């Protein structure tokens, strides 16, 4: 102990050397920061092929990055062929092209040191090319050949199926994966595209012809949004893109947008039994749509509740006060096609799960019933406003943001007055949206962990109990049939 004091004493002497350093950081004065968000329209180009492209030049390093968003996704998987979008997306890259065998294509890309990828997620397909700018002609030719004329080689398809099946076998091992899967089911029901799982049968039913059909249906320039950044001249690159995409016919009619779930989730406590010493918890309910005019206020409210890391209330209480978790926080998503999700997420040792759940419930109630302090609001507004330029920090971030906004239908002037909208928020706005959009009666509390130990709780804190919980069994990982 003496040593602590002697170090502190030394430090105190050190402090007297520097006269001009203010005693507290609040006394520091800063020059103004001038930043105007870039306008997507200044970078937007309609290509001859019908694709939309955002081009942002950056000549610091001799690299070019090109990524493509494709209007497709798992929501377009045909019934009985769950996994088709994903397999098609990945096999575009892995299955070679009409003129090049997979090994040959891979070898050429590797020798060029070009990174070429393709994949598909729930709501979009993506593909990208990253290469040295001196190699852009060769890289672009390979990339477009892959996207336009994929080979879908049978042996690579078989390998991908094997890998998918092996991955399925492990579906019930990782508590984090179980948590995401079961929460989505509780939130969206069992009949939505995001909860209908791929199975051994569905993956084995997928043929090469299915992939060719899926590709033909969704992969064409009119269905692409491109983001291109790096070391090129815009006019020159536009010419290259037009040339590369020439002769690729567009399909008539628009690709349908993702559906909305037709399901009313019911709140309650749910538990999946898994013998590990830490319980994973996700508690929440439906979020909102991006078109909801309150979504900016909700984002700020959620920041105060749990979205801003250590500064947030949930982190502060669950981690710092009680040491009950390493990570604790919340998200309140606004979906572009259907309601996002509100979720508080943390992990805690079995004995303290019930206590942490109780604390989170308290914090949600406090958020709804009591106004936040002006200081809390100022911190959160500062966080959003002052860090705003970072969204556009690099050429590739800018191009990606423009392309994503375009894909999701976000108006081109969305960011122009974004900071002003945040600055205008008042304490009352935060409380209003908290009371309206946080819904304790609809809370789904999902726990994945050692059910008996979690329900037993902490003998030293008997006041905390998880309460009656519905047990969710683990499904057969290959059929995804749940035992009764």
């Amino acid at each position: 102990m003496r040593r602590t004091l002697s170090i502190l004493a030394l430090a105190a002497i050190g402090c007297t050397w520097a006269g001009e350093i203010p005693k507290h950081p609040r006394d520091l004065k800063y020059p103004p920061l001038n930043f105007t968000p870039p306008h997507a329209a200044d970078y937007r180009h309609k290509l001859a092929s019908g694709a939309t492209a955002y081009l942002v030049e950056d000549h610091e390093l001799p690299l070019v990055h090109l990524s493509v968003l494709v209007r497709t996704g798992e929501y377009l998987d045909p019934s009985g062929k769950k996994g088709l979008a994903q397999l098609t997306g990945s096999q575009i890259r892995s299955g070679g092209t009409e003129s090049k065998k997979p090994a040959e294509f891979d070898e050429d890309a590797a020798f060029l040191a070009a990174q070429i990828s393709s994949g598909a997620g729930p709501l979009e397909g993506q593909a990208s090319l990253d290469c040295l700018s001196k190699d852009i002609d060769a890289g672009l030719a390979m990339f477009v050949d892959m996207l336009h004329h994929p080979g879908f080689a049978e042996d690579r398809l078989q390998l991908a199926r094997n890998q998918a099946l092996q991955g399925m076998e492990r579906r019930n091992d990782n508590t984090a994966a179980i948590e995401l899967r079961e929460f989505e089911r509780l939130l969206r029901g069992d009949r939505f595209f995001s909860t209908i799982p791929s199975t051994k049968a569905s993956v084995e039913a997928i043929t090469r012809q299915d992939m060719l059909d899926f590709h033909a249906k969704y992969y064409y320039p009119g269905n692409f949004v491109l983001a291109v950044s790096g070391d090129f001249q815009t006019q020159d690159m536009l010419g290259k893109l037009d040339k590369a995409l020439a002769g690729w016919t567009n399909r008539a009619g628009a690709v349908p947008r993702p559906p909305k779930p037709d399901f009313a989730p019911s709140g309650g406590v749910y538990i999946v039994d898994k013998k590990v010493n830490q319980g994973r918890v996700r508690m929440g309910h439906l979020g909102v749509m991006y078109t909801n005019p309150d979504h900016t206020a909700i984002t700020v409210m959620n920041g105060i509740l749990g979205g801003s890391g250590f500064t947030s209330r949930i982190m502060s209480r669950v981690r710092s006060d009680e040491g009950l978790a390493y990570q604790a926080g919340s998200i309140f998503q606004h979906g572009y096609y259907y309601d996002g999700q509100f979720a508080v997420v943390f992990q805690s040792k079995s004995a303290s799960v019930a206590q942490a759940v109780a604390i989170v419930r308290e914090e949600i109630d406090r958020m709804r019933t009591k106004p936040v302090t002006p200081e809390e609001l100022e911190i959160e507004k500062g966080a959003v406003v002052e860090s705003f330029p970072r969204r556009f920090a690099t050429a590739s971030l800018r191009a990606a943001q423009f392309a994503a906004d375009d894909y999701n239908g976000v108006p081109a002037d969305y960011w122009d007055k974004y900071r002003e909208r945040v600055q205008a928020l008042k304490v009352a706005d935060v409380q209003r949206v908290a009371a309206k959009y946080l819904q304790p009666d609809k809370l789904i509390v999902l726990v994945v962990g050692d059910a008996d130990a979690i329900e037993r709780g902490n003998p030293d804190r008997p006041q905390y109990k998880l309460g009656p919980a519905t047990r969710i069994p683990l499904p057969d990982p290959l059929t995804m049939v749940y035992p009764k």
Partner: protein
Amino acid sequence: MLDNGMKLLMVPRKGSPNVNAGWVAKVGSVNERPGITGISHLFEHMMFKGTQVIGTKNIEEDLKVMVELDRVKAEMRKEEQDLARRLREGEIADVKDPKVRTPRHQQLIAEFDRLTKREKELVVKEELDRIYTAAGVTGTNAGTSEDWTIYFSNVPANKLELWYWMESDRLLHPVFREFYSERDVVHEERRRSIDSTPTGRYMEQFEAMFWKSSPYHWPVVGWPSDLEAITREDATSYFGVNYAPNNLVACLVGDFEPARAIELAKQYFGRLPRGPYDPEPVRTVESPQLAEQRMTAYAETNPQAIIRYHTVADGHKDEYALDVLANLMNDRTGRLYKSLVIEQQVANMASAAHVNRKYEGFFEFRGIAKPGKTPEQVEQAIYKELEKVQKEPPSEHELQKVKNQVTASNFRRLQSDHFLMFQLLMAEADRGWRTLNTDPARTQAVTAADVQRVAKQYFEPSNRNVLLFYTKRGEPGKRGAEARSSEGAGQ
């Protein structure tokens, strides 16, 4: 370089109006010893607990409570040591069971809880983070590895002085408050990243088997019993040596004026007093391995083989040829994928990596068995690939491919300001930032004969460590899973 020995690296870069700012303390778990394993990482947490100005409502009272807490904790430790003795002698089964405590121990715990509560009342919660967050500073965090501890933030360009104020303040006037409750958080971190993952605890055991005498033997997060026992006094003496400016390097990448940055560094970091001495390099060297070591584990994971060989420390002349060897093996066009996955169909995934730490290094292969194949078959197939390189050097085309990729990745890694800052700080903790510029040429100079030579030199069976994973049989009541997993493991 400041007079007190602290160094500042600067990479001014226009673009977006912000600065990636960070600093490294050249210390990690490799510098620890039994009894305080995990202190580097615990310490990283403590550095966010505030200072004499930040994080407290009343510093005098705060310090008084801390003295009291340490006094009670010292008394408790005597009780805990006695419980540990009774556990050793088989008198009790669980030192945590409240029933085995003496009345005196219970009284001390009550006293300790009362003081902890008092301490909490004095804390201004997460003030460091609040000040940063409100100012638009994002990504404030830190990381601890075997060889370094790095603290970083992304700062709006006009608020660089705030970063200097906050970082120099916590180096100058740190107060390790909430010292005892923070370790609960670290325990949760350990449960999350090691205990509750399918393979975490087995990998920890494998590491401990692989390193015999080297301090890389223990995990960065530390052994649980040490975490329980580390005292504030341990932390203070650790800080005095390892967080002195002569052991620190700061780095700025982004939009700033270098002259102003130097001026601020002198003003703020210049006030840190130089440490009593420069920390000594690690003394304990890994003793040569004499015989192969094997481990077999049953876990909720795919059947797989992990094979590891001792190699060389970072910067050794053979590092570059070993890196090239790993690249030859990797990716879609690498030898492992082509041979094990595509041609022989024995594995569904296979990779190689050469990992160089400051004092030691290792070369590792991993392969996941295809259903119906065994980890042993994967293991044998990997040895065959090694033999091929030992017998015949790689072709010029293959070597050139790897070198082209290295060239491109040398550009790619400069793209992100944050990543560049991180690499510079990591290099400073090791052989210095200039190695970022000089190492690529050493890789380009590697010849096919070099690759063949290292393949012969470092991959003797006696230098080998093998971990085979079999899929753990399903829990009772899940017959389906059991049947499939035993088939998968080929048993």
